[in-house]
């Protein structure tokens, strides 16, 4: 791997940008590996990286049916935060934020992690109470989060209109360690670092079935590029997880919905943080290219189409225009959808499955990007030890049978 530094940039710059190598190999599938990760998004590539880096596995493949980072990794609104209510969630998401804080150095790749702060608006008395409860719970768990009055919120984000609107802003919760990162760079950075440790990244390789041994354990996968054998397989396939698990007769507590996002034409830097409103449902931040990145809600129905209804994104834009009237004249440049796998309690699953040797990282619903390094790190641990790490131990499939839900859906008190 060619390491990046100021010196290498200068040297290549002076020699006409010649001599750069591809950042990862275009690998052909080998007949067998020690472990296979299904899904070449940030979560899957990261899991392969941590398996190689922290657990010493060397013969690892990542198989991706499209191109790496072309699924939800490239389709989200890049918001990173860890101010979740329950102890289990706070530990999980903050594990990820801590990894984000050093990820660029870890990968020798600038993932443009920017801790510009995440502001979550409160518009009703109920919002205020729920927000403050979150803040107290977060602080008890060592996760930063603070209450802002409307004036304090405006001091951080001067564009925000707090009164004379349909749902005036009564205050906000602000996590200063939250922020954004460059989503493509996360996939590319993990891919490059994993490749350097010998991981084969195999694109255009769709899984069509699983091989099982005489004990019922997984023995490999059947793909559009042939059979690949491995005793340990991690599925990190977001909206398609239940389709894959159906191949081994495991039904998952997941439903797949389209989630839409859109970006505006680029404008000069005007927006200093991330602003979210659960109540009137909008998410907004500014990318380093200058586009306003806007997240809408999920569509009502399950779907695999990677698009959604215009009335859903319109609803988000109406909320944005109410909160930030100056954006009414902004033109939207692109809109798209991703397919998110939603669990009944809106918490993820990082766990062993009923099939020996088969592991899943799924159920991230509408909030998986923030968890990319953390989830990858914990899936790798779970695969390597055939047992979950204490942080992801509560995030099982069986919690729905056992009544041990981690009900962030109810905690957020919003219509997801």
């Amino acid at each position, binding site marked *: 791997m060619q390491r990046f530094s100021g010196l290498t940039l200068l040297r290549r710059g002076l020699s006409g940008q010649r001599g750069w190598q591809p950042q990862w190999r275009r690998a052909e599938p080998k007949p067998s590996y020690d472990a296979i990760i299904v899904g070449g998004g940030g979560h899957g590539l990261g899991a392969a990286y941590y398996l190689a880096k922290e657990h010493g596995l060397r013969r690892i493949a990542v198989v991706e049916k499209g191109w790496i980072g072309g699924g939800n990794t490239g389709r989200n609104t890049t918001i990173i935060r860890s101010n979740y209510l329950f102890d289990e969630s706070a530990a999980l998401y903050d594990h990820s934020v801590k990894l984000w804080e050093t990820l660029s150095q870890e990968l020798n790749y600038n993932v443009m992690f920017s801790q510009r702060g995440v502001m979550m608006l409160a518009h009703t008395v109920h919002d205020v109470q729920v927000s403050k409860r979150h803040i107290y719970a977060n602080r008890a768990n060592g996760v930063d989060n603070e209450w802002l009055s409307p004036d304090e919120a405006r001091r951080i984000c001067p564009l925000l209109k707090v009164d004379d609107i349909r749902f005036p802003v009564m205050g906000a919760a602000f996590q200063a360690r939250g922020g954004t990162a460059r989503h493509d760079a996360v996939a590319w950075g993990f891919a490059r670092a994993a490749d350097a440790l010998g991981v084969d990244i195999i694109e255009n390789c769709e899984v069509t079935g699983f091989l099982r041994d005489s004990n019922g354990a997984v023995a490999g996968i059947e793909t559009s590029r042939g059979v690949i054998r491995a005793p340990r397989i991690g599925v990190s396939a977001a909206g398609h997880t239940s389709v894959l698990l159906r191949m081994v007769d495991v039904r998952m507590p997941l439903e797949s919905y389209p989630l839409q996002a859109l970006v505006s034409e680029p404008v000069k830097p005007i927006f200093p943080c991330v602003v979210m409103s659960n109540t009137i449902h909008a998410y907004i931040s500014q990318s380093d290219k200058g586009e306003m990145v806007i997240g809408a809600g999920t569509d*009502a129905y399950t779907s695999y189409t990677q698009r959604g*209804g215009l009335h859903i994104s319109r609803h988000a834009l109406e909320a944005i225009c109410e909160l930030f009237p100056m954006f009414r004249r902004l033109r939207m440049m692109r809109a798209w959808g991703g397919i998110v796998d939603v669990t009944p309690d809106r918490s993820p699953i990082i766990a062993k499955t009923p099939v020996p040797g088969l592991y899943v990282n799924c159920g991230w619903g509408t909030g998986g990007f923030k968890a990319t390094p953390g989830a990858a790190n914990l899936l790798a641990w779970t695969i390597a030890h055939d047992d979950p790490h204490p942080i992801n131990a509560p995030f099982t499939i069986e919690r729905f049978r056992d009544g041990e839900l981690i009900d962030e859906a109810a905690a957020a008190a919003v219509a997801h």
Partner: protein
Amino acid sequence: MLLINCPYCGERPEPEFVYGGQAHIARPTDPRACSDQQWADYLYLRDNVKGVHNERWRHTHGCGRFFNALRDTTTDRFLATYEVGHEPPATLKGAHS
């Protein structure tokens, strides 16, 4: 936005409707006789079909009635809508997985 054919009212735009999830899931008649797994299956497990999906909708801002539909989740195209208590149209029977 979907155009949905309510079996009682005809074609109406999607915002008039509320999605009701997978169709033809019957509540166990004796929940106390269910194992934890059977009860969890009823509450939480859905087919999440990639293909023809059998689902419920409610025409909330219209006649208010529930009805069933067959929709292809890879295209969002409706193949049929039909009244609650009826089987899917015979020509499409077996299409859903």
